[in-house]
């Protein structure tokens, strides 16, 4: 696809061909003004490509802009309940989810504050809360971490890992190259008018720190969505996941209905070998 603004404007992006799979974390990087934000907007569907098209976008999509404006004449909670309902939640559920997300990001005290009076960081938390409320299948984050405090940034990292573990596609841009570095599945450099795949730290990190999880599930149960591998006859499975994803994997296992029993969690010392061994075991 390609995108330009105005009938005779310069192309911002041209001949971009990209496929994003479920359960994956995709990073876009590049210098300022290369079209990263435009690309994210096209992915999120708030901007239409000038040529070409975007296909197969899932039903629940959420977008977090870099800077969330204070110009809204609603309280934080009021805004979130409206957005929850727009995302398709019922009224009571939207309220519940809104309060839970504000709490999670340490902004519960701001629920009754008009968005216009919030600090930049607190307003950003509202934007993040909005996106996570609907448990989106496609989550697009445009420097969403900017302005958040340390605790909220970490919480957002965890929330992203959870979404990916639950099978969602998460695409993001962040100025910090270490952001979620261990968990990225694919990274692209936006340069010129197009995309170039780059070796993400995670791909290098295939040999980086990994964690081995031994879990036993209920008889006949399949693994929670987004986790690799399949249980053997006894319902046991060995997962070897990047260290950055281990918390999310554990949460998915323990949070499944009915929950899995985690028997062993251990760092993988000699990275590549046990991983292959585990795969052999499963085979």
């Amino acid at each position, binding site marked *: 696809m390609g995108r330009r603004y105005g009938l005779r404007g310069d192309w911002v992006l041209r001949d971009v061909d990209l496929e994003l799979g479920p359960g994956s974390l995709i990073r876009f990087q590049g210098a300022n003004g290369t079209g990263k934000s435009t690309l994210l907007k096209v992915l999120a569907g708030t901007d239409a490509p000038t040529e070409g098209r975007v296909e197969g976008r899932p039903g629940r999509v959420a977008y977090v802009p870099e800077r969330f404006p204070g110009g809204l004449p609603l309280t934080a909670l009021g805004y979130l309940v409206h*957005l929850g309902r727009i995302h398709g939640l019922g009224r009571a559920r939207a309220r519940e989810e809104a309060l839970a997300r504000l709490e999670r990001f340490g902004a519960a005290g701001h629920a009754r504050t008009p968005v216009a009076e919030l600090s930049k960081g607190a307003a950003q938390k509202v934007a993040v809360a909005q996106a996570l409320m609907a448990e989106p299948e496609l989550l697009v984050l445009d420097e969403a971490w900017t302005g958040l405090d340390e605790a909220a940034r970490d919480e957002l990292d965890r929330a992203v890992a959870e979404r990916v573990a639950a099978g969602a596609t998460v695409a993001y841009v962040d100025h910090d190259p270490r952001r979620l570095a261990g968990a990225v599945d694919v990274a692209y450099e936006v340069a010129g008018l197009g995309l170039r795949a780059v070796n993400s730290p995670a791909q290098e990190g295939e040999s980086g720190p990994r964690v081995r999880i031994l879990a036993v599930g209920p008889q006949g149960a399949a693994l929670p969505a987004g986790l690799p591998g399949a249980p053997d006859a006894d319902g046991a499975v060995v997962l070897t996941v990047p260290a950055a994803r281990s918390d999310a994997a554990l949460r998915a296992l323990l949070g499944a209905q009915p929950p899995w029993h985690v028997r062993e969690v251990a760092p993988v010392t000699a990275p590549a070998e046990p991983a292959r061994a585990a795969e052999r075991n499963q085979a």
Partner: protein
Amino acid sequence: MTALVRYQIALLARSQRWLAPVVLYAAFVAVGVQGGQPVLDSLGYGAAALLPVAAWLTRLCVTGEPPAARHVTAAATSPARAHLAALLTAFGCAAALGVAATAFVVLVSKWADTEGQVRINPLGAAGAGLLAVLTCALLGTAVGALGSRPVLHGTGWSIALTATGALLALVTAGSPARLTVNALVGGSHAGAVPLPLVPFAVAVLLAGAVGAAVCGLSSRRG
């Protein structure tokens, strides 16, 4: 769509930017419509005044959401649906204003023709008045939609063209708004309640076409 419209109504209501057009319209109707005047004349006057108010309300609804928040809403639904919700909200508010004005006018006016000779059925007059305010609200919404984003982005040009557009929609020969208002005033002279269905139908088509065009444009021009 219901959730989007509810959100747009909340944005408009809480922003208090609706106060100016609503107060202005109320003042216009209260001052312009004196008790005891012929009902159809006053209805025409009230409907005509609603057109620029509807355009103004549309501009408020379409520009009320800060851009970043708009992108958030558009991602959750689609830019076209989000834009349509803003237009529907504006039209709904203008129509509600028009209905209230029609009720007020019918209650305080004299149920007779211009000469005061022929009795005018108040229910028939109210029906014609409702048709007229809906026609004007539709056209005003269309003018407001064409005069703001995504069609026009700069504030200065935008307001000047919206105001000019609203005026033209009222005075141009063949405009459904003018036809409706003329029908009411003519009916008042003739002593018969008109039924301006054709201008209303044309207004529905026009507003529908404009709505489809600007909503389709909203994902391309922001």
